[in-house]
């Protein structure tokens, strides 16, 4: 892998990470009670989440300057790690053996794809 390929891959990984954060923010917002429908959408959490999401779309465009299209969904599968982490840490979701095996398969797949 060249330096620019690494940089672009990193951009996509970072974009996937921040879009997982935006998911957590939307989930947090969905759990709250709002007085009006407008406040349900126009509040700092939701606006922040969508701003981060827009930023992540720009980051993926930057990433695609250097990485092949086929690598996009492969690297984006790292999102399952962040979502699992936030799910357990913030939302008290349970981690089971199946999920751990699934995450292991994903990481093996990403490594195999990257060097294959």
């Amino acid at each position: 892998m060249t330096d620019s390929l690494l940089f672009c891959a990193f951009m996509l990984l970072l974009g996937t990470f921040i879009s997982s954060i935006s998911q957590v923010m939307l989930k947090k917002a969905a759990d709250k009670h709002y007085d009006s429908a407008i406040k349900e959408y126009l509040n700092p959490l939701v606006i922040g989440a969508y701003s981060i999401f827009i930023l992540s779309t720009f980051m993926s465009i930057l990433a695609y300057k250097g990485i092949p299209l086929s690598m996009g969904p492969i690297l984006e599968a790292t999102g399952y790690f962040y979502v699992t982490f936030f799910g357990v840490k913030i939302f008290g979701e349970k981690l089971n053996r199946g999920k751990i095996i699934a995450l292991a398969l994903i990481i093996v797949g990403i490594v195999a794809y990257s060097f294959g």
Partner: protein
Amino acid sequence: MNKENRKFLIYLHILLVVYSLSAVCSKLASVEKFLSFRFCLFYGLVLFLLALYALCWQQIIKHLPLTFAYANKAITVVWAILWGMLIFGEKLTAGKVIGAVFVICGIVLYALNDVEDSGSVSTGVKPDRTDDEGGASDD
């Protein structure tokens, strides 16, 4: 699976093709000058396709088991490989095929384990869902 389910499964897969095309538009935008007409066109298409995807996904998951719908999302790996080869002339190697198979198996297994045990779904790497999940505890 009944006839009604099958109809929505087909809708789901059409939708996943639409979703995969948003990445094609990202790739097309990436070679254009930032904020040029063609950049804005392709970026606009990216946002349009993602919004369309989010709206239709919400409707389709009303008619299909959520785990099943999430497991099917793994197909986007295949579409990206196919579009990469057909549109951008990307090469596929044995190592990449093996890697992609592992990732697909991982995504399917993750989705199947997500709902079965906890009754909640935390999958999905884009903010495309607003359905309320169970298990939230800290508010």
